[in-house]
């Protein structure tokens, strides 16, 4: 029996070793490629053949040389991610609190609206939303990207679940202490929500940082585009931008990877939040 278990353990380990290798393979390819000149890569194909003697960080030097717009895209993306995450965390928690802690007329109907929004992919209303953003003069503005998604139904749903788990006595205690309805939210509830904020913040930050389609549509000035849109724009038949593309792709992953290693627990909690108690 014991031997059996050991064999099983080794088999499992090998299986997962293979799965992990396949998972890391594309990223390894990308990294190896970033040590070669981009044009050579395009002519010979992406593979592990690399002349290690000539491997170098020239592509990264070029990336950091300032002779390209990479870091202004980086800055745009970072700015949007920070503002969007902060705003949507706050507003979604605010809305969720209303749903979780009060009884009021129309509550069920309004919550069905939340679920409805969750159940319709945003791509469905892409065109009218785009027209609306034009009408609101938010084209080429960070707010055009952020405003439509400032209250995230998924987060409202998650926060409401989370808040339902808190004892209602807390609120009554707050009222007794003379806090206003909003004071209770700020002084008592928000501090208690910290753990869920971390998870949801990562969820929202990730989706904002990696968002592609909507920012591509809203922003049409090359100096205001976000990092994913900018990277895509380097895949051009005119001009040799492959060096920046490959090194830039690598460099787009690295910060998130570092964050992930440090805050793994929250990442996983955030990304899988939707299914918990679902």
């Amino acid at each position, binding site marked *: 029996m014991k031997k059996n278990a050991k064999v099983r353990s080794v088999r499992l380990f090998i299986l997962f070793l293979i799965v992990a290798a396949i998972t890391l393979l594309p990223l390894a390819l990308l990294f190896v490629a970033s040590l070669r000149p981009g044009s050579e890569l395009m002519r010979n194909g992406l593979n592990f053949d690399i002349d290690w003697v000539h491997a170098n960080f020239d592509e990264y030097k070029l990336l950091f040389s300032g002779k390209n717009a990479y870091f202004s895209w980086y800055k745009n993306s970072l700015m949007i991610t920070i503002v969007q995450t902060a705003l949507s965390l706050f507003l979604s928690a605010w809305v969720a609190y*209303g749903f979780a802690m009060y009884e009021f007329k129309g509550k069920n109907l309004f919550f069905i609206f939340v679920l409805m929004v969750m159940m319709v992919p945003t791509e469905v209303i892409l065109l*009218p939303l785009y027209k609306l953003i034009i009408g609101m003069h938010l084209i080429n503005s960070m707010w055009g990207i952020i405003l439509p998604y400032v209250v995230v139904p998924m987060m409202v749903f998650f926060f409401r679940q989370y808040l339902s788990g808190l004892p209602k006595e807390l609120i009554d205690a707050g009222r007794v202490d003379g806090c206003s309805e909003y004071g209770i939210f700020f002084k008592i509830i928000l501090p208690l929500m910290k753990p869920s904020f971390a998870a949801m913040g990562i969820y929202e930050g990730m989706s904002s940082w*990696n968002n*592609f389609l909507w920012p591509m549509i809203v922003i049409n000035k090359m100096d205001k585009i976000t990092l994913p849109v900018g990277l895509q724009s380097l895949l051009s038949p005119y001009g040799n931008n492959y060096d920046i593309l490959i090194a830039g792709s690598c460099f787009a992953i690295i910060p998130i990877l570092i964050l992930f290693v440090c805050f793994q627990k929250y990442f996983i909690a955030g990304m899988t939040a939707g299914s918990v108690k679902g």
Partner: protein
Amino acid sequence: MQKKRVRKSFIYSKKVAPYVFILPFLITFAVFYVYCIISMVGMSFQNVPAHAWVGLKNYKIVKNAVFIKSLRNSIFYTIVSCALMIPIPLVLAALLNSQEMRAKTTFRSILFIPALTSVVVAGVVFRLMFGELPGSFMNKFINIFGAGPLVWLRTPGTVWLALFFICMWRWTGVNMMYYLAGIQQIPSDLYESAEVDGASRWQQFFYVTLPLLKPTAIYVLTISIFGGMAMFSESYMLFNGNKSPNNVGTTLVGFLYRMGLEQNQLGIGSAVGVIFLLIVIGINLVQLTMNGTIGKKKED
């Protein structure tokens, strides 16, 4: 002063406060969803930008061969990605959770890493891996078995292979995590009593794990369906634009994008959007009726 205090106490009253709390949602819901859907339905009967009513003319697009193809592509992609992305991560999760497994957290983290990468980066890598040059990774790989080189991204069959590869690469880890969360909520005494009853590992998996993971599986199914029907960016990156050869990778959203944004036919694009909305509502209705319990659960 008096008035101000009255207003203040009004807003601060326990009756009004909940509405103040949900107000941000109501505003965005009304402006960005309700208004947009109404205006989309309106535009679908108009010739935009002239805004002349043209009746059902825009809906003639349903007979367009490219529209039909993109709809078929989306449905095909959704079905196959569900068929892949529900069972495989489930099995992986169950295996990873087994007692004999070593270095669980390390493997869990590694499998999760692709989810951190942007679809753009994933697209760039896979586009190059599936390049048609003899030296491209996939061609080198199949060359080991004496096959190829293939023109991966211009041949319908292999295009799908590349698309499903991206999909699996990015989402296997996340879906596995959903299942792991579900598995860990299963009380361990259930397994213990199953073992006492002499159930084998497989029997335990089929009679204990699977039934109890049904809610998780349904959640994964739901997000897979919507993710699949809304697929666009993967195809856009793989073909460097919304222009897959012979529309092998054009999806419903890709077609909507082409009509509305590339060719400036907002009327026709809106008609496609309305059709898309109807499909989504249809899927939701089917789901809700099939899982009436789930619908109720969310209410309480």
